[in-house]
Every structure is written in structure tokens, then in C-alpha cells.
């Protein structure tokens, strides 16, 4: 149980910067999920906290003590690796007991703790087996067990579900969350999967090119993305973006596709003529039966069961997605409108959220 503070954490490999001064504070028992595409620096961040790589600058505080230069063996953090990194020549019991033996715990204590953890993870029947005799899901649980028996101050998860099949992933995801809540261990969880990120996180850190683009609760990240990258990254299918120019005293936007649309709120968004990027999620687009100024040319319909995803283009050639209830209208052209309350406005130059 501990707090974790990262202060200006920076990492460069040679001249290539991968992490630019990250600041974040995790409260006791909080689960922070770090999500981003490949090469965004999320795994590097985890390795810095674990002590497997030295940071180029910045500090790491665990429970208020500076552990930046501390040997990884002394940090009291446990990590669940993507490939589980189980010790192949040891039984499940020995895999879990390894860290405890190194701590010099009495044999009976070790046995009790391993058996208790095995009970929690339904591994009791498998304690005598070697890792190669286990299924993927079982290996994953052993990796979890190895982390929890040590009762560390901090859990680090490095994409622990990415080697599981889709069905198992949903179940293990829920198991991890329940376990983490019950044990109330402060956790850093790295993933590239936004569904995992949304479902597991107390707070999300969306990483982009070595920066934290946004650190907030999943709901807030979804409802108020801090920039265009976050808007496009979180949410499936991805948010639509259209280029537009402010007009009507900053209260309307003239889309590149033609029509002028209402903007949310009463206050002006900026001077007329300012270029903005307007984002709207596919499920928030409204399909109209009567003609509207905005027309979507549909070129692909993807049925998703209860819903369908329409791929199309606007009159200016911009690609645009709309999610509609199933079955989708079998027409080539759809009239749509963009409700003002569902719009997200971004600065077209910096990509930052407006308002």
C-alpha cells in the first residue's frame, strides 16, 4: 500500500527521446492505466518505475521515499510480464515462493502465503506442475500469483492480457480488477487496448509520443478528450473529425463540407474565420429522414449485430463513420445532422481541446 509519484520523468535512448518529463501521482490503492500506441513510451515508463532502466532525468517517489537510484531488487515492486516470464525449470509453487525465499521468510510462512494466493487464483491443484504443463490462462494466473504473494507496495502490469484469446481476456480482465480492488494495491497497468484501459482504470494516462496527452478518469477522457489524439484514440469506432471555420460571431461553424452548424453553449468559441477541427463520435451522429444540408455517401455497411457501422464520405471527400441501429437503411445517400451538444472542438493547429 503506497503512493507513487513520478516527477519530470524523462528517458532517452542515445539521442532518441522516448519519454518527455512525465508528472503523475498515484494515490494509495489507485489503478492507473497507461494506454497508447506502440512506441509511445508506455513500456519504457514501466521499466523505469521497476528500475530495469535508469531514467535520464526526473525522480520516482514510492511512499514519499526517493527510489530513483534504488536497486530493483530493493524496490518492493512486483511486475506481471507480457509473456509472464515464469521460471521454466521451477514448479508453480517454487515460482511463487522464489521471491519469498529470497526475502528469507520461514518455510511455514512461505507455504501459507503461497497456498493462500493459489487459493485466490484457483491454482491449488496446479502447484506441483511446471509452467510448460499449463495453459495460457493458467500461466497468466501464476504470474499474478507470483506478484501477489510478495505483498509488494506496487504492482506493475505490462500488457498482461495480450497473449490470451479474446474470450479469456474479458474474464481475466474482470478478475484482475476485482483482485486489485480487494488487495487495494497501487498499480500501474500498461496496455495498448483501449477497452482494457477503460474498464480497468481508476484513472487513465493516454500517452502519445512520449507525452501524457491526458491523465483523467475514463469517463472524463471519453467525454472531454484533451486533444484530437485522445479523441481519436479512445472510443471504438474512432471519433470523426471535420475541418471547419467559425462564423456567426463564433457561435456557428461552417464545415468544409458546406453547411453551417450550431455549436454547443452560449459563449462564442472564437473570432469569426478561426479554423477549428470538429469531432463527433459515430454513435452521436443523427440520421434524418427529411433532407438536411449534410449528406453522407455510404460506401460500406458493417453489421455488428445490434448495430451497424456505416463507412462513407461527406461532400468534401472527408471520410465519416456513423453508427446506426441494425438493420441499416439500405440507401446510398443519408441525410445526417450533428447535434451541438455532442460536438468536440479542437484547435486545428495544436489539436488541443477548445472550451
Amino acid at each position, binding site marked *: 500500500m503506497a503512493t507513487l509519484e513520478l516527477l519530470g520523468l524523462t528517458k532517452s535512448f542515445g539521442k532518441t527521446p522516448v519519454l518527455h518529463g512525465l508528472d503523475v501521482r498515484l494515490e494509495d490503492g489507485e489503478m492507473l492505466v497507461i494506454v497508447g500506441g506502440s512506441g509511445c513510451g508506455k513500456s519504457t515508463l514501466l521499466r523505469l518505475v521497476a528500475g530495469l532502466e535508469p531514467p535520464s532525468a526526473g525522480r520516482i517517489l514510492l511512499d514519499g521515499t526517493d527510489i530513483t537510484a534504488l536497486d*530493483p*531488487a530493493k524496490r518492493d515492486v512486483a511486475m506481471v510480464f*507480457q509473456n509472464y516470464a515464469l*521460471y521454466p525449470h521451477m514448479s508453480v509453487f517454487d515460482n511463487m515462493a522464489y*521471491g519469498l525465499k529470497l526475502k528469507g521468510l520461514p518455510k511455514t510462512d512461505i507455504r501459507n502465503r503461497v497456498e493462500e494466493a493459489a487459493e485466490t487464483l484457483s491454482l491449488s491443484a496446479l502447484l506441483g506442475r511446471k509452467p510448460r504443463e499449463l495453459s495460457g490462462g493458467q500461466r497468466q494466473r501464476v504470474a499474478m500469483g507470483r506478484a501477489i504473494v510478495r505483498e509488494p507496495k506496487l504492482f506493475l502490469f505490462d500488457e498482461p492480457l495480450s497473449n490470451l484469446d479474446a474470450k479469456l481476456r474479458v474474464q481475466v480482465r474482470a478478475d484482475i480488477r476485482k483482485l486489485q480492488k480487494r488487495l487495494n494495491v497501487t498499480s500501474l497497468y500498461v496496455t495498448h487496448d483501449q477497452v482494457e484501459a477503460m474498464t480497468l482504470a481508476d484513472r487513465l494516462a493516454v500517452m502519445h509520443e512520449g507525452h501524457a496527452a491526458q491523465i483523467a478518469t475514463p469517463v472524463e477522457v471519453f467525454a472531454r478528450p484533451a486533444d484530437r489524439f485522445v479523441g481519436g484514440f479512445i472510443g471504438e469506432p474512432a471519433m470523426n473529425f471535420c475541418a471547419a471555420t467559425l462564423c456567426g460571431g463564433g457561435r456557428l461553424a461552417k464545415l468544409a463540407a458546406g453547411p453551417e452548424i450550431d455549436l454547443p453553449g452560449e459563449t462564442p468559441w472564437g473570432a469569426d474565420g478561426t479554423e477549428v477541427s470538429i469531432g463527433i463520435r459515430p454513435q452521436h451522429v443523427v440520421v434524418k429522414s427529411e433532407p438536411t444540408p449534410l449528406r453522407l455517401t455510404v460506401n460500406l455497411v458493417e453489421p455488428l449485430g445490434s448495430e451497424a457501422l456505416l463507412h462513407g464520405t461527406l461532400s468534401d471527400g472527408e471520410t465519416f463513420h456513423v453508427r446506426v441501429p441494425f438493420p441499416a437503411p439500405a440507401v446510398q445517400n443519408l441525410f445526417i445532422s450533428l447535434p451541438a451538444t455532442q460536438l468536440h472542438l479542437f484547435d486545428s493547429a495544436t489539436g488541443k481541446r477548445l472550451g
Partner: protein
Amino acid sequence: MERRTLFNSRLLPAVLVAPQLAITFIFFLLPAGGAFYQSTQSTDAFGLNTVFVGLRNFASLVTSPQYHEALVRTAVFCVIVTNLSMAGGLVFASFANRSIHGRFLYRILLIWPYAIAPALTSVIFVFLFQPQIGLITNLLAGFGINFNYATNSNQALALVVLIAAWKQVSYNFIFYLAALQSVPRSIIEAATLDGARSFHRFRTMIWPMLMPTTLFLVVTNLVYSAFDTFDVIYALTGGGPGTATDVLVVKVYRDGVINLDLGGSAAQSVLLMAGIVGLIIMQFRITTRRST
């Protein structure tokens, strides 16, 4: 399922396998057969009379105290050389496996000894240990140690052990380096986070994972030191002083070619062959078990 290639005539396949069969026959089966034949014969010192003696050559080996001594000497030699060269290979490989500057050069240099002809290896060591002018001999003399492998039996044995091990270090180095590089990094990292310091990581993680390689190398090194060190030893000491470095392979040569006891020498060769076949079978067992 087995895939069979179809040929129109029988001539082409026969021509294709002929060279390999010829090599096997001329260079392996024929000499081996010759050794078997010789081992049942006894020839007088002038090579004028040869008589069939059955297994008497073997019988006299089994009862010969000299042969027993050579057997023990060879066993000691093999065990020390194997240990020394494997330990050396592992230590160097552990260093080379770290990300250090110039590690490419370092690796090449370590592989070099293996490329030197065995007899020349001994010549190099003669420069270092020659009783009168050797570089290291003089150095040792400075510490009051009189090093003379030509007269001191223990020193002679120690020197051939050193040379034989030195030459084999490269081989072990390559295998251990490959094995170390195939140890998954995440496992070592997991052990680190579990609190294991470097010595402990080696003992509990790396060493067990190197076990298949170690088993393989033990057999290979035993074969090497028992059967493949003739040139090194013969070029340096010729088996002497006295019989100090007279291991089995050297004894075969001394008894047969120098002392002209062809029958006894052939019988020793046959026994060596049996030994090597035993070791090779062991090695096959180990390697095939590893691949399954």
C-alpha cells in the same frame, strides 16, 4: 509422412550416394576393420612373422599395469581439461554476453584459439614455457619457481592440461554464449524484481537453464580431451617425461609406431573405439532428448 523421390533409373541415385559411401568405406570402415584384424595378430619385432593370437592382445592389456596407469592418467586428464575449459568458456561467455564496448572484437578474439592448428598451439606454448628461454618460465623463475616440463612430471601434465583446455575454451565459449543469449531477458528481470542479486540470479535461473548445453558440452569435451589431444601432447612432450603425459591416444602411437607392438596398439585402438562409440551414443541421447 516420409516423402519419397522417384528416379527413372537406378543409376543416378547410386552415383549420387557413391562419393559419401566411398569416403565412409575408405576412411572409416577400412581402417577400423584393419584395426580389428591387427588386434588379433602378433608380429615379431622385425615384421617377419605374424601369427593369429585371438584375444590375447586384449588379455595382456587388461592385466598390464602400464595400461591401467595410462587409463587413470587419461581419466584425470579428461576430467580436469573438461572442467577447466568449460569453466573458462562459461566465464568468458558471461562477460561477452554483457553489452560492453568492443564486444564484437572480444568475441572474435575468443574464437581464435580454436582456429589454430593443434601442433602450432603447442609451439606457441613452447615459446612461453621453454625450460631455458620461455617467457613465463623466466617470470616464474623470478618468484623462485623452477619450471621445467621436460623433467618435472607434474609440471608436464599441468602444461598439457592447460594447453588442451585453452584450445577448447573457444568451442565452449561459442556454445555458452549462444545458450546465454537464448535465456529470456524477462525471466532474469522477473528474478531481479523478486529480489535476486546477480550471483543468485546466476545460480537459480541462468545455470539451470544452461543445463542442456552443459550436458552436451561435458560429453563433447570428454571426447575431445580423450581422443583429440594427441597432436597437442605429442608435439609438446611426446608422452614424457617418462610416462607422465602418456594418455591413451599417445600410448597407442608410442606402442604401435615407436615400439612396433602393432597387435597391442591395435587392441588399444579397438578399446578406444568402443569408448568413443559409448560417448557418442550418450551424446545422441542428450541431443535428441533436448530437441523433443
